[in-house]
C-alpha cells in the first residue's frame, strides 16, 4: 500500500537559505514524532541558481521520495514555474505577493533548454505570460495559492528588531516561509521554534524566532483553516535522529576505528570530511582519541597518504567522488599490490568528466571494479540507504584489515545529501577485527617477512615501527621480504597469494552481509538493484502488493567479489528479472550476466542526474508486470 504522506518543497536561489529552511522543517517534524525523508537538489553554483529541497513527512517510516508536492514554499518566481506541475490537486503554493505580476520570461536564471519546455507548456495550456497566470492555471486544478507580503512582514520584523535596512534581514525570508507553511498545516508552533533555535546560534536564533512568529501569526490570521492538509504531532518515546548520508558515513568511520581521513575538496564527498574535522576529538569509554583529517593537495596525495597511515598501523580512509577517484587509480593499484587495508569512500555523482557535479548518478560500479592496472584483489561494498552507510562505513575497516586489501565503499549523491529519520543507531556491540595484525610480542624474536606465503594468502602484518621487525614494501613484484623480484615462480606464487584472498572473502563473509532480500521468496518476478534506488523499490513493491502484483527484491551490497552462488540461487527460474539502476548501461545487470550467466529481462534506468522516486519506480514496475513495458524503461522524474 502507498504510504500516506505530506510533501513540502522549499525552493529558491542558491544561497537564499533553502537548505537551512529544510533542516528546520525536517527537525520540527521530527520533534513531533513524524518521519521525514528529504531530497536536496542544487546547481554547481554558490549564489543565484535554482535549488530546492523536497521533504516527505509521514506517520510511519518512509524510505524514499515521491513525485507529489502538497505544499510548495517558493522563495522566488523560478521555483513556481519549475515545480507548479508537481503540485497536486488540494495542494498549495506559497508565493511572494509582490512577484505575482512578474513576466515568467523575465526570470533571468532560467536556462534556455528549460525556457523551450516552459513556452511549450504555457502555449499548450493557454497560460498567459505572468506568474499570476501560471498560478491561476494551478488554481483551476484545485491548487490553493497563498500570496504572502514578505516585504511587509519583514518591515514589521525589522521594527521589532530595531532594523530599518531591510536588506540586512531579507535572508530571513526562508524562516518566513516556514512560519507560513506550518501555520497552514496547523502544526504546533513551539516545535518549530525549537527547530529554529537548534539551527542558529542564540542571537541569530532570537531574530529568526521573531520572524517565525510574525509569519506564523500572519498566515494563521489570513488563511485560517483554509488549507486542506494538516500535520499532527504524535507522541513518541523512541529516540530518533535526522541525518544525511555524509554524516552517517562519518560516524560509521569513527566507530570502525578510522583515525586518519584524507581528502581533497569535491562534491558530494567533502561534507563528510568537514563533519569529521569538526568532531576530531573522540569520546570513548576510556581515554579520548582523535581522528586526524588531512586536506591534501590532490586526490593522488589523499589516497597515498591514507595508505602510508595504514602501513604505520592506523585505520585510514579517504573520501572522494568520480573525478577524484580517477586520480587515485594508480595509488589503488599500489595498495592492492602491497596488501594495504585502505578504505576509499566513493560518492558517485553525475559523470563522465565534470558531468553533473552536484547531481546524482550510479555509473561508476564498473570503474570501481576495474580501476587500476593489472589484477589485484579489492572489496566493493555498496550501501543502499543512510543506515547502511553507517554500518558499512564501520565494517569496511574490518574487511580491509582482515583480508589486507583496499575496500571501496560506494555511495551516491542521493544518499550523501538526502536526509532521513531513523531510530538512533544501535552500535554498542560493534566489534573491531584487525585480522592478522602482529605485535612485538607475537614476533618473539623470529625473523619477520611482511609477505610470507600462507595457506590463506593473508600474511602476518606488523605496522612500521614494530620492534623486532624490519620490513620492505614495493610496488615492484616482490618476494616474501618485500624486496624486488622478477622471478617467474615467485611472481606466480605472489599473484596467487594475493588473488586467492578473494576466495576467502567469498567463503567467510556471511550472505546476509553481502545482499538483502525483500518480499515474497516465491514471487516469480524479481527486481535486482544496488545503492540508493533501494528505498523507492521497497516502497513500490509494497504498493504493487496492494494491487495483487507480487514481486521480490534482491539488493546487492557486496559487489566484488560478487556472491555468485547466492545470486544464482535467488535468480534461477524467475519469470522476469528486472534490473533497476541509475545509469545508462545497466552495469549491475551486466555484471550479474557475466558472473552467473543469468540475464535481466527488463531494465529500468535513470541517468538524468536525479534520484529515482517511489512513484516512478512503481509506475515502471507495474507496466512491466502487466506486459505494457518494453525491455528498457528510462525514468525522467525530477527537476
Amino acid at each position: 500500500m502507498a504510504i500516506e504522506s505530506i510533501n513540502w518543497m522549499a525552493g529558491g536561489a542558491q544561497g537564499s537559505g533553502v537548505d537551512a529552511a529544510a533542516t528546520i522543517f525536517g527537525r520540527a517534524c521530527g520533534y513531533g514524532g513524524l518521519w521525514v525523508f528529504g531530497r536536496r537538489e542544487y546547481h554547481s553554483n554558490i549564489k543565484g541558481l535554482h535549488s530546492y529541497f523536497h521533504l516527505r513527512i509521514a506517520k510511519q517510516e518512509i524510505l524514499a521520495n515521491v513525485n507529489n508536492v502538497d505544499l510548495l514554499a517558493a522563495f522566488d518566481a523560478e521555483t513556481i514555474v519549475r515545480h507548479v506541475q508537481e503540485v497536486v490537486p488540494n495542494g498549495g503554493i506559497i508565493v511572494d505577493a509582490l512577484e505575482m505580476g512578474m513576466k515568467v520570461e523575465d526570470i533571468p536564471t532560467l536556462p534556455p533548454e528549460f525556457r523551450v519546455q516552459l513556452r511549450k507548456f504555457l502555449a499548450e495550456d493557454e497560460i498567459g505570460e505572468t506568474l499570476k497566470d501560471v498560478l491561476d492555471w494551478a488554481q483551476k486544478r484545485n491548487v490553493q495559492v497563498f500570496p504572502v507580503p514578505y516585504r511587509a512582514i519583514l518591515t514589521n520584523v525589522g521594527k521589532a528588531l530595531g532594523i530599518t535596512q531591510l536588506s540586512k534581514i531579507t535572508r530571513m525570508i526562508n524562516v518566513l516561509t516556514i512560519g507560513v507553511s506550518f501555520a497552514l498545516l496547523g502544526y504546533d508552533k513551539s516545535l518549530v521554534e525549537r527547530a529554529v533555535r537548534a539551527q542558529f546560534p542564540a542571537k541569530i536564533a532570537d531574530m529568526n524566532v521573531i520572524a517565525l512568529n510574525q509569519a506564523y501569526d500572519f498566515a494563521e490570521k489570513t488563511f485560517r483553516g483554509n488549507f486542506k492538509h494538516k500535520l499532527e504531532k504524535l507522541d513518541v518515546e523512541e529516540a530518533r535522529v535526522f541525518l544525511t548520508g555524509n554524516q552517517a558515513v562519518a560516524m560509521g568511520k569513527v566507530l570502525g576505528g578510522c583515525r586518519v581521513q584524507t581528502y581533497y575538496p569535491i562534491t558530494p564527498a567533502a561534507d563528510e570530511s568537514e563533519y569529521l574535522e569538526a568532531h576530531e576529538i573522540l569520546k570513548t569509554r576510556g581515554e579520548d582519541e582523535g581522528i586526524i583529517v588531512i586536506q591534501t593537495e590532490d586526490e593522488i596525495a589523499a589516497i597515498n597518504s591514507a595508505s602510508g597511515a595504514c602501513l604505520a598501523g592506523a585505520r585510514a580512509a579517504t573520501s572522494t567522488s568520480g573525478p577524484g577517484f580517477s586520480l587515485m587509480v594508480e595509488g589503488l593499484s599500489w595498495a592492492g599490490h602491497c596488501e594495504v587495508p585502505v578504505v576509499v569512500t566513493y560518492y558517485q555523482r553525475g559523470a563522465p568528466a565534470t558531468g553533473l557535479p552536484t547531481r546524482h548518478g550510479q555509473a561508476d560500479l564498473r570503474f570501481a571494479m576495474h580501476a587500476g592496472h593489472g589484477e589485484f584483489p579489492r572489496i566493493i561494498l555498496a550501501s543502499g540507504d543512510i543506515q547502511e552507510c553507517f554500518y558499512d562505513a564501520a565494517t569496511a575497516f574490518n574487511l580491509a584489515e582482515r583480508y589486507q586489501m583496499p575496500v571501496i565503499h560506494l555511495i551516491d549523491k542521493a544518499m550523501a545529501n538526502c536526509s532521513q529519520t531513523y531510530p538512533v543507531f544501535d552500535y554498542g556491540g560493534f566489534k573491531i577485527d584487525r585480522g592478522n595484525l602482529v605485535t612485538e610480542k607475537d614476533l618473539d624474536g623470529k625473523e619477520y617477512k611482511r609477505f610470507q606465503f600462507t595457506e590463506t594468502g593473508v600474511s602476518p602484518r606488523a605496522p612500521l615501527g614494530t620492534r623486532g621487525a624490519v620490513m620492505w614494501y614495493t610496488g615492484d613484484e616482490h618476494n616474501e621480504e618485500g624486496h624486488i623480484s622478477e622471478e617467474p615462480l615467485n611472481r606466480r606464487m605472489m599473484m596467487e597469494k594475493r588473488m586467492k584472498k578473494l576466495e576467502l572473502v567469498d567463503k567467510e563473509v556471511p550472505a546476509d552481509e553481502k545482499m538483502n532480500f525483500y518480499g515474497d521468496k516465491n514471487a516469480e518476478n524479481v527486481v535486482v538493484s544496488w545503492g540508493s534506488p533501494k528505498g523507492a523499490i521497497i516502497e513500490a513493491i509494497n504498493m504493487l502488493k496492494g494491487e495483487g502484483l507480487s514481486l521480490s527484491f534482491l539488493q546487492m551490497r557486496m559487489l566484488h567479489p560478487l556472491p555468485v552462488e547466492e545470486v544464482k540461487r535467488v535468480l534461477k527460474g524467475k519469470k522476469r528479472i528486472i534490473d533497476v539502476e541509475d545509469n545508462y548501461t545497466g552495469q549491475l545487470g551486466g555484471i550479474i550476466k557475466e558472473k552467473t550467466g543469468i540475464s535481466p529481462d527488463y531494465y529500468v534506468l535513470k541517468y538524468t542526474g536525479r534520484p529515482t522516486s517511489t512513484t516512478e519506480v512503481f509506475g515502471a514496475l507495474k507496466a512491466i508486470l502487466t506486459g505494457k513495458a518494453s525491455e528498457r524503461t528510462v525514468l525522467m522524474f525530477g527537476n
Partner: protein
Amino acid sequence: MATNPSNYRVNDVFADWCPGCGDYGIMNALQMAFAELSLEPHRVVMVSGIGCSGKEPHNVRVNGVHTLHGRTLPFAMGIKIANPDLEVLAIGGDGDGLGIGAGHFVNAGRRNLDMTYIIHNNGVYGLTKGQASPTLKRELKTKSLPQPNINDAVNPIALAIISGYTFAARSYAYDVRHLKDTIKMAVQHKGLAFVECLQPCPTYNDINTKDWYAGEDRKDVQGNPQSRLYKLEAEGFDPEVRDWKEDWQKKVAALTKAQEWGDRIPIGVFYKKEYESTYGDRLTTRIPFYLERPPAKQKLRDEKDVSTVDLAEFLDDLKTS
C-alpha cells in the same frame, strides 16, 4: 643499539646501480648517518619513489617503502602523521620530486612535518635511459637526448625555501663524509628538512660528470684541478634564522646563494629555521594528546574487541527527540 654502518647493510639484495653511480655514495652516507645517530632500524622508515633512487631503501636495513613515481612525500606524510615517533626519510629522484611530484614538493613545505626529504639530483631520468630531468639546465644536450634541452631548470634549493621547508642543504654523492654530516643535520632538524644531493650519472649525464664537478677541465698553474664545489660553511655563510625578523633576509641570502652554478657551486646548509611549528605541533594545539596517542597507537577496542567509541556527541546534535 646499532652503531656500526654494517648493521644497516642488507645482505641478500644485490645493489643493481651502474658502476660508479652516485647512489652507492648516498647509500653509504645513509648507513653511516644512521649508525652515528644510533637509530634503531625498526624506528626508521625510508620512503622512496620510482627511478634508480627508488631502490635505495632495499639496500639499507631499516624499514623501506618503495612507492609510486612522484608520490614519495604523500606516503611519507601519511606514515609520519599516523606515527610521529618514526624517523621518516623520503628519498627520491629529481624527476620524481620536481617533475611528476612537484605539487607534493611545494605543498609539503606548507606543513613542515618533522621529517627529511633527500633528492638525488643528476639531471637525467636514468632508469628510462637518460631523458632530461627538471633540473637539467637549458641548452644542454646530454648523451641520449635527441635534441638540446629547451626547458629551463628548476632550482630545488630555492623552490624548497620559498615553499616553506625549514631546512635546505646541498651535498654531493662523492663527498660521502659531507653528505653523511648533512643527512645527520637534516634528520636532527625539527621540521621538514630538504637535502639536494648532487650526483653524476655515469651512464647518461656526460656533462655534469665526476670530472666536471672535480674541475678536471680547469687546472691551476700547478696542474691541480679546481673543484667546482665549495663549502658554504668554509666561507662563513650563516644560514640559521634565529629571529622571525631576520627570516626574509636569510631567505634572500639563501636564494642568492642558490643561484650560483657553473664554476662555483655551493654545498652545505643554505637555510635553517628551527622555531617554526611543525605539523605535529599544530595538530597538538587542536588535539592535545596527539603526540602521546597518535592514530597508530590508539586502542580502538576493548578486551572483547568491541569498539570503545562513544558517539553520543555526534548523535545528540542529530536527535529529533
